[in-house]
């Protein structure tokens, strides 16, 4: 059908108007979005912190203000990023990096150290450390070498560790007293644990034991006690620059190299299967509750409300339980029991500098300031974690929160040289997801072997993918 000129004109103009308008609006929107991007000043220092906004504000108050007094030209911005667990936090930081909003420093735990290092995100600190070795001697002399080695990868140091946690055993002493049970010896065994759990279960009606599905402080503690691991344990060569410079003559540094090398998967080896099957057996014997997946907040709440008699925890539990209302004498801690060996898992954390940072010197100065006792005290105020500096482990520090046997926290490193970081290879993110799925699969099915055969397959595929 033929249309009139007037109709065509009207239609063309309307659409043209629309297209012009749409383009203009899209352009304005793009400009607006571009305007949202941060325009960094040359002296701005951006720090990503795994925690709440309140925690970030506390760090800024306690560490940032003294730092700014020494460096008045620096513009300090501390960004709180809340993650349900470390893998969630790392995913958010990586998304920031992808979005062109990379911070200069970010919290990194053992879980993500090799991920950040292997992908070239984190900056090796060797040159900085060696340049300022005189001012750092006091710090390294105060920090156990295992905590430093777990922050190394392929011979390079990426983080000056600020806090750590070993997988120890926590007790509800209220339930302990009611059961007429006594605090176990430091060389107690899995059988002692079972007898204690059984006593609680039959006399108190409480759940004797509970745990949480995550890499740190999970059934993995039993796996370590059974002298097994998900991946073959090894060490990267190198690292002598660190040990020769700061730990010469220290027996605890003997044999240490360039960081942990996580080799071929061993997730379905008999000792690993036995460890997970033991959790299933405890649940079937009604000595254990079905575990939750996640960071452990629910577990801590249940423990603090006297619903659980024993669980795995680290130094950070002292602050958590105190905040949840437990008094220092309502709970206590002991080393993890021996199975085939007495071996503990470890995780530590600190701040990594990003390679992309345009203000590396400022970032390095801030990193160093975070290792000062006052700064560390502020970072983990209220015992929300365990300081890496041995000199900060004092009775007065633990008097308000407990537990009575607080020396266990650092003592784990001294007494057990076989204390080993959690297996967190460069493909940690995938490992954490598969680990959670296969663990819950085993608990639901009541059989560890098929699930761990599946985990072995998962890990082999991750290793293969990482190699390509």
């Amino acid at each position, binding site marked *: 059908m033929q249309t009139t000129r007037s109709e065509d004109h009207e239609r063309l103009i309307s659409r043209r108007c629309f297209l012009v308008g749409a383009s203009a609006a899209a352009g304005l929107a793009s400009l607006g979005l571009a305007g949202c991007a941060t325009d960094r000043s040359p002296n701005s220092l951006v720090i990503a912190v795994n925690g709440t906004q309140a925690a970030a504000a506390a760090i800024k108050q306690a560490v940032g203000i003294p730092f700014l007094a020494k460096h008045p030209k620096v513009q300090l911005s501390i960004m709180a990023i809340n993650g349900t667990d470390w893998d969630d936090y790392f995913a958010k930081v990586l998304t920031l990096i*992808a979005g062109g909003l990379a911070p200069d420093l970010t919290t990194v735990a053992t879980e993500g150290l090799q991920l950040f290092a292997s992908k070239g995100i984190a900056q090796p600190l060797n040159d900085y450390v060696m340049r300022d070795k005189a001012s750092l001697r006091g710090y390294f002399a105060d920090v156990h070498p295992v905590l430093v080695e777990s922050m190394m990868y392929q011979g390079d140091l990426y983080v000056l560790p600020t806090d750590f946690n070993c997988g120890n055993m926590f007790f509800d002493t209220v339930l302990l007293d009611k059961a007429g049970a006594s605090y176990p010896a430091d060389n107690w065994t899995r059988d002692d644990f079972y007898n204690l759990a059984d006593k609680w279960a039959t006399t108190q009606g409480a759940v004797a034991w509970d745990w949480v599905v995550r890499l740190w402080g999970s059934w993995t503690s039993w796996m370590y006690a059974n002298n097994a691991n998900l991946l073959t344990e090894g060490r990267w060569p190198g690292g002598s620059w660190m040990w020769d410079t700061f730990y010469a003559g220290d027996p605890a540094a003997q044999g240490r190299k360039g960081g942990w090398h996580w080799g071929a998967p061993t997730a379905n080896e008999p000792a690993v299967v036995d460890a997970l099957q033991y959790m299933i057996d405890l649940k079937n014997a009604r000595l254990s509750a079905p575990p939750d997946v996640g960071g452990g907040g629910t577990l801590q709440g249940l423990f603090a409300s006297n619903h659980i008699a024993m669980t795995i925890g680290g130094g950070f539990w002292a602050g958590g339980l105190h905040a949840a209302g437990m008094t220092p004498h309502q709970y206590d801690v002991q080393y993890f029991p021996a199975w085939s060996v007495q071996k503990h898992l470890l995780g530590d954390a600190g701040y990594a500098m990003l390679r992309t940072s345009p203000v590396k010197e400022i970032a390095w100065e801030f990193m160093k300031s975070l290792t000062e006792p006052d700064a560390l005290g502020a970072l983990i105020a209220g015992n929300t974690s365990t300081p890496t500096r041995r000199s900060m482990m004092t009775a007065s520090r633990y008097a308000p929160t407990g537990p009575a046997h607080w020396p266990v926290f650092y003592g784990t490193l001294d007494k057990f040289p076989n204390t080993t970081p959690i297996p967190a290879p460069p493909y940690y993110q995938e490992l954490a997801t598969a680990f959670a799925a296969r663990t819950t699969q085993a608990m*639901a099915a009541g059989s560890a072997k098929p699930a761990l055969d599946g985990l072995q397959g998962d890990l082999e595929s991750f290793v293969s993918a990482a190699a390509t």
Partner: protein
Amino acid sequence: MALALPRRHARTAGAKTGTDLHRRREARFAWLLILPTILGVGLFTAVPIVGSFVLSLFNYSIISPTKWVGLANYGALLHDSSAQHAFVVTIILTVGIAIAQVVVGLALAVAVQRRTSWARSVFRAAFFVPLLVSGASVSIVMSYIFDSQFGVLNYYLGLIGLPQVSWLDSTWGAIFTVMIVVTWQQLGFTFIVFSAALGAVPRELTEAARVDGAGGWRVFRTITVPMISPSILFTVTVGVINQLQLFDQPYVLTHGGPGNATQTVVLDIYEQAFQNLRFGYASAISVILFIVVLVATFLQFRISRRWVFYS
């Protein structure tokens, strides 16, 4: 308001009347009004859809160089049993929840329809409020209720002598619990739609049927259901589209577990993208999910020709 769309009626050639100018102004104003929506949909829906498809042709992990892989991500999906399982889980949950929402929502709407007007208002508000709460918040509360060891539900089951149920720790228990939680939370939507539809059923039809001797069930089956069938189609269509994108409840309640029993497609996409950093592969799954949603919606409308009655 008339948009400047092609008009088929004849007009005098070259005549530029006051009406034409008015229409042009109206048309411009109309385009201006819908411009924000078009821009919003374009920027935040169309562009991401196209972007996802483009991304699905690459290997992209944020921290490694982007690499063109063509259709390799789709090929990998064919061999990924866990992703395929996620589609099966999603379909099971979608069908279960859609049926439960229609059946329970309709039953409640019918039950409430017979109440007094103030009671109807109270029930409508009560059923609708959960819909206003975020899925994550509801799921956190529900996780305390359904916890096998410490949950409120098992506590009361124990009090009346019933065995403890592994609501979240067994395969079918977890699937069933997710269905219950989602159905409970979203029931308000189907309930409100059905309440409105029931109110619109002509009373003379049902009364005539009763005069002719039809019982309550027969009246409901042969008159009420056909009369509200467009609403049923609407709720089923919207429900299916929503449930195919189910994420919050399984993420918070079960993390997709135990094992991958409640691993929905969107949860799988999230894990592949934001935990495993396989953005290209996650995009390929997203594209397939988009096609599944399109096909499911198309099929529903095709099938609806046989049973939906438009008066």
